């Protein structure tokens, strides 16, 4: 019964994916891509991955959608008419189609030929998580067993933020209002919803050790709050100067590195947390990670968002 649902869901996802590449204009592509992200979140729930569903909805559909929409608005002035028409008139391009069909068959063979029942690392992880006192196994895997991956991931995020900063070619949009949207409704909405979002972010970090949640989802909510503030035209507060921004971006990585190196002084190896302080260390790390991820997502948006022709955000 649920198999029928899965097949229908997958069919819809594939259909939307095709639509997001449609040659009929970039706005349609971006909107379809956001819808694609939301349907993927549904798919993650069906696959028993609620943490991933939260992250996909917040980051994959939300933040990515905002950044894509801003880029689409910025690029809309000149879509190259003749070049697009040349490609559309020829219909489906044959060589890329061949490449993608080959890729599909290779991947499909891989998927089908793997054994249908495999334990993977699940029993190991579940047993280990019970020892570490963190009931949410995914959080335990992320921050404890495969903490090295997460460390490098935060570094990648920070590097991308620095690179986006370096590519900035327009003055900051902080404080600029959306064109024509300087209305009381948006202001009140932001003022009421932002504290909610902060509380929800804190709740997600805290509850991430036993229920679906965690640092990334909470960081995404923080990032969304920051983007909302920026889009509503709230000028950044006076205490949020350059140094504070840089600190908040880097503190997550620095705290992570510090906690990773700390066991070296106790005679262990990298990231080998001592048993008594494990849960506190992980929680401390998660809190700083949340702050950094939120700051990174906001900076990624603000640094790449461009003012529109009328002075507001495009």
């Amino acid at each position, binding site marked *: 019964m649920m198999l029928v649902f899965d097949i229908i869901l997958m069919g819809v996802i594939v259909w939307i994916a095709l639509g997001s590449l449609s040659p009929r204009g*970039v706005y349609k592509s971006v909107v379809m891509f956001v819808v694609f992200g939301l349907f993927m979140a549904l798919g993650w729930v069906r696959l028993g991955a609620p943490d991933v569903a939260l992250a996909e909805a917040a*980051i994959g559909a939300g933040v990515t959608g905002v950044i894509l929409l801003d880029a689409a608005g910025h690029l809309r002035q000149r879509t190259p008419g003749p070049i697009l028409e040349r490609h559309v008139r020829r219909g489906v391009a044959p060589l890329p189609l061949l490449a993608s069909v080959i890729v599909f068959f290779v991947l499909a063979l891989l998927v089908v030929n793997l054994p249908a029942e495999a334990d993977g690392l699940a029993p190991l992880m579940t047993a280990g998580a019970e020892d570490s006192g963190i009931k949410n196994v995914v959080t335990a895997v992320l921050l404890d067993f495969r903490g090295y991956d997460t460390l490098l991931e935060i570094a990648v995020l920070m590097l991308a933020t620095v690179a986006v900063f370096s590519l900035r070619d327009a003055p900051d949009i902080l404080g600029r209002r959306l064109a024509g949207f300087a209305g009381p409704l948006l202001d009140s909405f932001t003022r009421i919803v932002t504290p909610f979002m902060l509380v929800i972010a804190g709740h997600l970090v805290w509850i991430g050790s036993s229920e679906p949640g965690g640092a990334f989802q909470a960081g995404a909510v923080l990032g969304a709050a920051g983007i909302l503030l920026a889009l509503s035209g709230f000028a950044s507060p006076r205490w949020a100067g350059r140094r504070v921004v840089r600190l908040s971006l880097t503190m997550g990585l620095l705290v992570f590195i510090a906690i990773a190196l700390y066991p070296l002084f106790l005679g262990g190896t990298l990231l080998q947390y001592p048993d008594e302080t494990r849960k506190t260390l992980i929680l401390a790390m998660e809190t700083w990670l949340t702050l950094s991820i939120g700051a990174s997502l906001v900076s990624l948006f603000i640094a790449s968002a461009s003012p529109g022709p009328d002075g507001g955000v495009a």
Partner: protein
Amino acid sequence: MNHYLVYGLGGALIFSIGVYGMLARPHLLHKVVAANLMGSGVFLILIGLGNRVQGRPDPVPQAMVLTGIVVTVALTALGLAIVKRYYTVTGLTTLDDDPPETDA
């Protein structure tokens, strides 16, 4: 057909759609979207395969995909920053440097 096969094959399909989009669509924004599609396809395959376990699904692919989603947003932001800079410098939204064909 097993529950996980639907998502595994669907992931393969979405990845190949992304490959096609990356190669065939000239507009740079479509290429960025196609890169995202490829990422999502891989995630579907990973977590789909992780669902072959009896009982609760394998948490390791889920952690990897969580990492992947964050890296993908970083990739998208940087890619779009590059696209916008390219547009500011050249005024083009594609990589084609042939002059546009005239209707002959």
